[in-house]
């Protein structure tokens, strides 16, 4: 498990050979430097003992707030507050709806994993699923109680922000990338300006812009709530980064493909949809999944503009005065959830990449 490697831009087709295999003892103490490194590694491990004691040996696994006195981690806190961290302020009697939304998102993502199913019908299913999720979360129709977006919180918000921002950003990114690579100088200039402006800014700045400036820029009668504003910021941010990745894919495409399509008289958009995009995207699957991971991690930043995502819920849960300062445990819990999500995506992307490699290299 520890040997999982990540996809870096500099991934090479051939790995350099490792040094020749030596017996373990010689590897560990073969020469002065190896011996020194071994001692160093052991020292680091010894240094982690207090952390291990805190997390396991001295930890409190059962009981209420009163049981958590003294040193050691207070894992009972996580058990008691898991609902608050996972669902935020969502009304308890409607939490089954938020649960369904989580299950629906995970199911949709799992279904979409197979490259065989990637077609227009899948897009339609996604659109329907997202509409269903929004109805479930918001309610107000079909006899479901209305829940305003200010009451949404926790994991469903994190997942919805990630899926929606990536989904909305993708078509935008394709347009920006095509514009930047295209023949029209005006489109090139606009795309270049938008991409570089957004990429030059920190996401925190963009979130401020969305939270503070958007209400000023739009007509007074248009009210966009906080969640919508942060979604807008995340979308434009993701679009700029995805556009650069897709541009890389377009650059890697052989010019002959486009020339042949033009010679055959295939209309521009048909050529893009059937010939250019499928090949370009296949070339950039590793950086695309990396961008997806980055965007999932970025959803945690909405805490800064006061959206009640999983991290904000954890933070507010740990301020409960009944418990003795369990914020470290709460953040570890949130970190574990993010880790599971992002790590599974990176494993999947490796698998996908190997599939592509197997198909193209025989």
């Amino acid at each position, binding site marked *: 498990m*520890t*040997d*999982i490697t*990540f996809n*870096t*831009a*500099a*991934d*090479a087709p*051939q*790995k*350099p*050979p490792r*040094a020749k295999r*030596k017996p373990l003892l010689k*590897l*560990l103490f073969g020469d002065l430097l*190896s011996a020194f*490194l*071994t001692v*160093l*590694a*052991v020292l680091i491990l010894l240094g982690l003992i207090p952390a291990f004691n*805190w997390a396991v040996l001295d930890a409190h696994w059962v009981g209420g707030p009163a049981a958590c006195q003294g040193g050691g981690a207070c894992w009972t806190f996580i058990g008691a507050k898991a609902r608050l961290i996972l669902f935020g302020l969502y009304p308890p009697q409607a939490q089954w709806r938020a649960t369904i939304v989580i299950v629906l998102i995970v199911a949709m993502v799992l279904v979409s994993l197979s490259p065989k199913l990637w077609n227009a019908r899948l897009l339609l299913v996604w659109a329907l699923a997202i509409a269903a999720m929004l109805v479930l979360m918001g309610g107000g129709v079909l006899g479901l109680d209305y829940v305003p977006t200010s009451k949404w919180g926790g994991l469903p918000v994190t997942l919805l922000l990630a899926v929606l921002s990536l989904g909305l950003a993708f078509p935008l990114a394709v347009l920006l990338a095509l514009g930047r690579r295209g023949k*029209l*100088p*005006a*489109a090139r200039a*606009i795309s270049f300006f938008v991409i570089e402006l957004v*990429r030059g*800014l*920190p*996401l*925190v*700045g963009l979130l*401020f*812009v969305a939270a*503070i*400036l958007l*209400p*000023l*820029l*739009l*007509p*007074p009668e248009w009210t966009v709530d906080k969640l919508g504003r942060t979604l807008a910021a995340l979308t434009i941010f993701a679009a700029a980064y995805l556009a650069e990745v897709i541009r890389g894919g377009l650059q890697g495409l052989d010019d002959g493909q486009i020339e042949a399509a033009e010679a055959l008289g295939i209309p521009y958009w048909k050529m893009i949809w059937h010939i250019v995009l499928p090949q370009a995207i296949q070339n950039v699957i590793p950086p695309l999944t990396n961008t997806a991971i980055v965007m999932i*991690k970025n959803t*945690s*930043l909405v*805490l*800064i503009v006061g959206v009640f995502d999983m991290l904000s819920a954890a*933070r507010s849960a740990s301020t409960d005065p009944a418990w003795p*300062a369990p914020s*470290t445990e709460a*953040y570890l819990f949130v*970190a574990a959830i*993010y*880790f599971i999500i*992002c*790590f599974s995506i*990176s494993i999947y992307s490796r698998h996908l990449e190997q599939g592509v490699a197997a198909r193209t290299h025989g």
Partner: protein
Amino acid sequence: MLSLWYSQRARSWAMQIALLGGLVLFVWWLAGNTHENLTERGIRTGFDYLWRPARFPISESIIRYDASDSFFWAYVVGLANTLWLSFLSILLATVLGLAVGLSRRSAHPLLSRFAGVYVTVLRNVPLIVQLLFWYAIATSLFPVPREALNPLPGVFLSIRGVYAPALTLGPGASMLLIVAAILLVIAIVAGFKLSAGKRLPVKAASVGLSVCVWAGAVVWLSGMLGHPIGLEAPALKGLNFRGGMVLSPEFAAIITGLTIYTSAFIGEIIRGGIDAVEKGQWEGARALGLGERHIMFRIILPQALRIIVPPMTSQYLSTVKNTTLAVAVGYPELGLVVNTVINQTGQAIESILIMLAVFLSISLSVSAFMNWYNARVALVVR
């Protein structure tokens, strides 16, 4: 007329005019809305507020700030904090990242596993979660000053922050510092000159020796001048430490978080660069009978540098942008100052424009510098 419709040129012109026209209309519409909204809320616009006194505190800064200073100065103080934070975390993360990258590639089983776990865990957890985690440790798990942890002599970890020995400068110190800097350069150059043409360990030993001689000379000089430069260790007095240098829990958390998070990414970039150097280079070097370490530092790393520099540039840039996350733990860098100013004055558009301008110029100058460096590396190698 019909031929005009089918003409490629005419169509592309029409398309571009439509695009630009649409953009102009869109911006016009936004500007109109903004004007209407601002007059409705009675918010003044313009940059003259910059010269009014700010009247809010900034909890820590590397340059002097007082609540009676102007808003402009408050921005400068925030920017200085941002740059200081970026500089320090980039420096530390590069050193740590190099160690992580080399460890992952090493044949040493313990070390490479260890580095693998480190990279995997840190890259898959959002930075802001890590920052809040370190901050929670610094403010809740660290002991009170009386029972402070003491990992190194003179360094104390407590709930009030990290205390470390500080340099104290007496009269005549600046003169001594200048002399010491010149002597240091001479010592290093002399170390290299003396061992010219020798093997790497000999070189390292020679440079190390001359730096030791330098340190002795500086201490002796300092004694001659009546100790203008000294070290002052923090000492426990009453409920807290006095003296020495103090890092607030906020600063300690953000610098720890940024350094560790970035080092995982830099480690991967360095490993990727090493992996991308052609296999034949290893084989050739081994065939010549060179040692593994020699191959790495003399043959592989110099070539890997060409591959490493571009992704490293974007990593450095995103580290600079990531400093804005210090908002989450309350370290007053530019983002936090901008946010405070907006809350105080309502001058949102101006403040955000300033922030955009600052970050765009940082981005552009860092990439310009790295492009220059990249060109240099490319020249040296070829």
